[in-house]
């Protein structure tokens, strides 16, 4: 009998077949490696869908699509007084006098946090009652409401900004005011208890 017809893949030896399969395996691994590199070198979903921070400073209103936020006054304290009780802290109390105004329809502020340079977010304290930012106070469009918001932060927190949102569960792709707090150059820590002032409606 004559040998088979000549062709590229015919009459390969065992070693050549093994090398061919090994080569195919290396190509698959290389393709996966390139894919992994592309995934790592492009923004992940957390970055793609991050909140849109709107910069602001004390005294000027910051608009965040559905509401505006204005930082009126900043205080720091070792003790906060609320509902007749004193609340001390191992760090610092930061008390912000805020003004919020819904722009188009009724809403409530359900997220308030002070963020530091390390990216740590310190939410408004639940040691004191804070209806203005816990989602329970409804803001009517065009009617400004002012009130104190208290945060407890550790002493090593620096470069602070205050952020607010009407979205409770996720702030992905939401506009979020990011108001710089001027506390880094020598925080004046009030040794006397600082009382939280009442919420006021100020159209």
């Amino acid at each position, binding site marked *: 009998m004559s040998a088979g017809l000549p062709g590229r893949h015919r009459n390969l030896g065992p070693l050549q077949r093994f090398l061919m399969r090994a080569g195919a395996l290396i190509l698959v691994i290389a393709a996966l490696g390139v894919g992994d590199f592309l995934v790592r070198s492009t923004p992940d979903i*957390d970055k793609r869908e991050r909140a849109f921070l709107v910069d602001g400073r004390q005294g000027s209103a910051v608009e965040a699509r559905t509401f505006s936020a204005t930082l009126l006054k900043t205080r720091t304290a070792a003790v906060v007084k609320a509902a007749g009780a004193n609340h001390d802290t191992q760090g610092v109390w930061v008390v912000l006098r805020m003004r919020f105004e819904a722009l188009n329809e009724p809403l409530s502020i359900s997220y308030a946090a002070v963020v530091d340079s390390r990216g740590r977010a310190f939410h408004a304290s639940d040691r004191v009652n804070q209806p203005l930012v816990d989602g329970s106070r409804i803001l009517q469009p065009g009617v400004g409401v002012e009130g104190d918001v208290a945060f407890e932060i550790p002493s090593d927190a620096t470069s602070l900004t205050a952020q607010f949102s009407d979205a409770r569960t996720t702030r992905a792709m939401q506009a979020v005011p990011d108001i710089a707090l001027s506390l880094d150059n020598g925080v004046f820590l009030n040794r006397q208890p600082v009382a939280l002032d009442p919420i006021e409606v100020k159209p």
Partner: protein
Amino acid sequence: MAQMTGIGRKAAGQLAQLSGQRWGIGIGVLLIAISGLFGGLGTAPEQPAGVDTVIDAGPWKVTVTGARLTGDLPPMRLSDKKNYWIVVIATVEITADRTWDLLGETVQLAPAKGIKNKPTKTLAGTPVHVNDGTVLMRDAAVIEQLNPGMPEKVAYFWELESTAPIPSEVKVYIGFRRYRVDGLTSHMNWMDDSAHNKSVVVPVVDRRSATAASS
């Protein structure tokens, strides 16, 4: 040398003649065997930790320091004045980068007789009693959240029926979470890892007479 080369060629030849399916089966069996060598086939044993031991559970570190049996203890109010509180005290430090507002899951009580809250199951299937409330020891404020970088002593409360046997010790589980991709949203998040929850057995100090005198 020539003989060795011949054996190598023969082995390579035999490997090359194996079908892809057989290669797959072989690699699978090998991976399972390696996994078995490192305990992958065994049932994960419960890993008890001691009182006063720092337990790093992912987004928080918990150190259980003791437990008390008390009467009514404001600001926590018993549903029936005859009942008692089992109070577990722990130092909790949030190590995640944000305020954590599900404090109840950090310390959960293992099933015990007479606890008013019926047990629920963790995602890993372990039955636990959810607490009735958490109180900051610093100022006796009822809290649901703690801040990162600010370790605090926290009291966890469970109501015990007056007819139940008085426990000399209780077992609590420290809830674990792991930072990984959330399969639902694709975002990175601290996800339930209750299969690795650690237990701590805590002696209970009877303080009923002290709380009865002060109330």
